């Protein structure tokens, strides 16, 4: 007797397995194919084709025991077909066959095994570094990382960055053309180049995160959570380079920020500031993971990186059970460290705010006045908002109202504007 639901269940299992493989294996398969073919487009197309076949065949034939190996084999065969059909590139095919023979012909098609047996590095790490190569324009680095390492499709990336799909497609095409024409290498940088180039990779991930953060606080509704993508990519970099302290610190920073996503916006889509957030709505698994990453990373004060300092600031917030328990004096200390490492007027602004919350509103206002006089922040709404807040705390209601009105005029997004309007209204009511 056949169970009529068995077929449907097998199809659902197969769909799950394909989705999981897509998330876990895309980067591995495409990275291996790029190394094998030296052609980014052939590699990407063959990998996409392998996943399409998996979607069809796993439903009827069952999910293979090792999906990654299955996908790599199918993608390799597909790439070989394409290269053979082109005819002109027989040299490349021959090279590839030679490589297969070098690995013993019957070598494993399991990319995980290949990586473990590989000379030095996982192919995915080559991919990460090449996508973030400084010779590519920064927007192309971000797009290429999301497309090739993250496996996101061009349309999704385009929507997330608010550009037409054709523009994003062109950006990716140009980047791949430059990799080919300028011979940007497909390799992990040498030990002496590594710290600087890793900084470039982390900067790309930070940009992905920031774009996601902006989107979630603006008037934009997105299907794609770029902050989650940034975490997924950071997790991969940490897995590949477990000794890179700044990569771990960045991952902690991203987790601690993302943990607050649900509490940052209320039911009406309005912005909820940190001190008013319902902390039970924070993602406590992400908080715990972020704090654990920091706890397990040595922090030599002499060489402490800027991502580490930023993560430590978020960790102080994460450890406070209520806003009132926040150790603002510790935060001031971290901002001092951040200013010493990389001076910026925005960091000075944040340090002044921290001084105010640590209790010294007079010092805070003096610092903000100095910052305003320096003109470094121009007409920044956050400067006006911070001054308004401190003036309110000092009981200078009229001055505070005037600065809130300036901040409202300067605020770039609807939710920020409405948040400041609520603060102004509360001031008038109080």
């Amino acid at each position, binding site marked *: 007797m056949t169970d009529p639901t068995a077929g449907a269940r097998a199809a659902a299992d197969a769909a799950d397995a394909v989705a999981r493989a897509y998330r876990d294996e895309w980067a591995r398969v495409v990275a291996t194919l790029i190394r094998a073919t030296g052609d980014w487009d052939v590699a990407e197309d063959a990998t996409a084709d392998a996943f399409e076949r998996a979607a069809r065949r796993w439903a009827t034939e069952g999910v293979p025991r090792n999906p990654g190996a299955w996908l790599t084999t199918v993608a390799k065969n597909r790439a070989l077909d394409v290269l053979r059909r082109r005819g002109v590139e027989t040299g490349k095919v021959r090279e590839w066959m030679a490589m297969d023979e070098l690995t013993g012909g019957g070598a494993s098609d399991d990319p995980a095994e290949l990586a473990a047996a590989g000379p030095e590095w996982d192919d995915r790490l080559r991919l990460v570094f090449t996508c973030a190569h400084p010779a590519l324009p920064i927007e192309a680095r971000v797009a290429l990382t999301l497309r090739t390492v993250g496996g996101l499709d061009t*349309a999704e990336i385009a929507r997330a960055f608010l550009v037409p799909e*054709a523009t994003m*497609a062109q950006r990716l095409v140009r980047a791949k053309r430059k990799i080919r024409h300028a011979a940007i290498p497909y390799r992990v940088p040498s030990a002496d180049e590594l710290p600087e180039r890793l900084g470039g990779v982390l900067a790309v991930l930070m940009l992905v995160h920031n774009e996601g953060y902006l989107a979630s606080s603006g008037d934009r509704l997105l299907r794609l959570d770029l902050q989650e993508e940034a975490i997924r990519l950071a997790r991969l970099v940490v897995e590949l380079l477990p000794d890179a302290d700044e990569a771990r610190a960045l991952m902690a920073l991203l987790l601690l920020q993302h943990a607050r996503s649900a509490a940052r916006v209320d039911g009406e889509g309005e912005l909820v500031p940190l001190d008013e957030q319902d902390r039970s709505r924070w993602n406590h698994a992400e908080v715990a993971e972020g704090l654990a990453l920091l706890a397990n990373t040595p922090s030599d004060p002499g060489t402490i990186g800027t991502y580490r300092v930023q993560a430590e600031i978020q960790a102080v917030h994460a450890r406070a059970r209520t806003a009132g328990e926040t150790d603002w004096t510790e935060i001031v200390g971290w901002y001092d460290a951040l200013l010493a490492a990389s001076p910026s007027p925005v960091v000075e602004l944040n340090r002044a705010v921290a001084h105010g919350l640590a209790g010294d509103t007079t010092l805070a206002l003096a610092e903000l006045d100095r910052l305003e006089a320096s003109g470094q922040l121009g007409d920044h709404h956050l400067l006006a908002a911070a001054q308004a807040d401190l003036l309110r705390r000092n009981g200078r209601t009229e001055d505070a109202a005037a600065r809130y009105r300036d901040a409202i005029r300067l605020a770039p997004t609807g939710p920020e504007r409405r948040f400041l309007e609520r603060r102004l209204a509360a001031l008038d009511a109080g």
Partner: protein
Amino acid sequence: MRYMMFVATDPEAEPFVAEEDDIGDWVADVDARGVRVFGERLRPVQDATLVRVRGGELLVTDGPFTESKEWIAGFDVLDCRDLDEAIEIAGRHPMARFGRIELRPLWPLDVEEDPTAREVREVREDDDRGRRSEPAVGA
């Protein structure tokens, strides 16, 4: 991979310090490594001659039209493993500090095919790739 390395002046670069000009060491190093195919300094723009043909008429004039602040002071043709090696070599040239350096990959002339036609074809092929549909799974 071959690159043309243009060595140019740059008014925003660090000021030239004669004692720190280690061009001799640079040349000795790249020649020992066999990565420099050919290279020379160029006489200043005052010694340049401009040649054009307009309406079938040969026009010869003195130097460029305008006094540019950045001009090419020399060049080297590098033969490197890849761009990273070229960057490493360019970064140690003294004019990376006192001026700036531009690396341009050579675009070998394919005698079988007109280069303009090839670029048009490549752009079209690449555009087609960019437009192609994405995989159905994992979306």
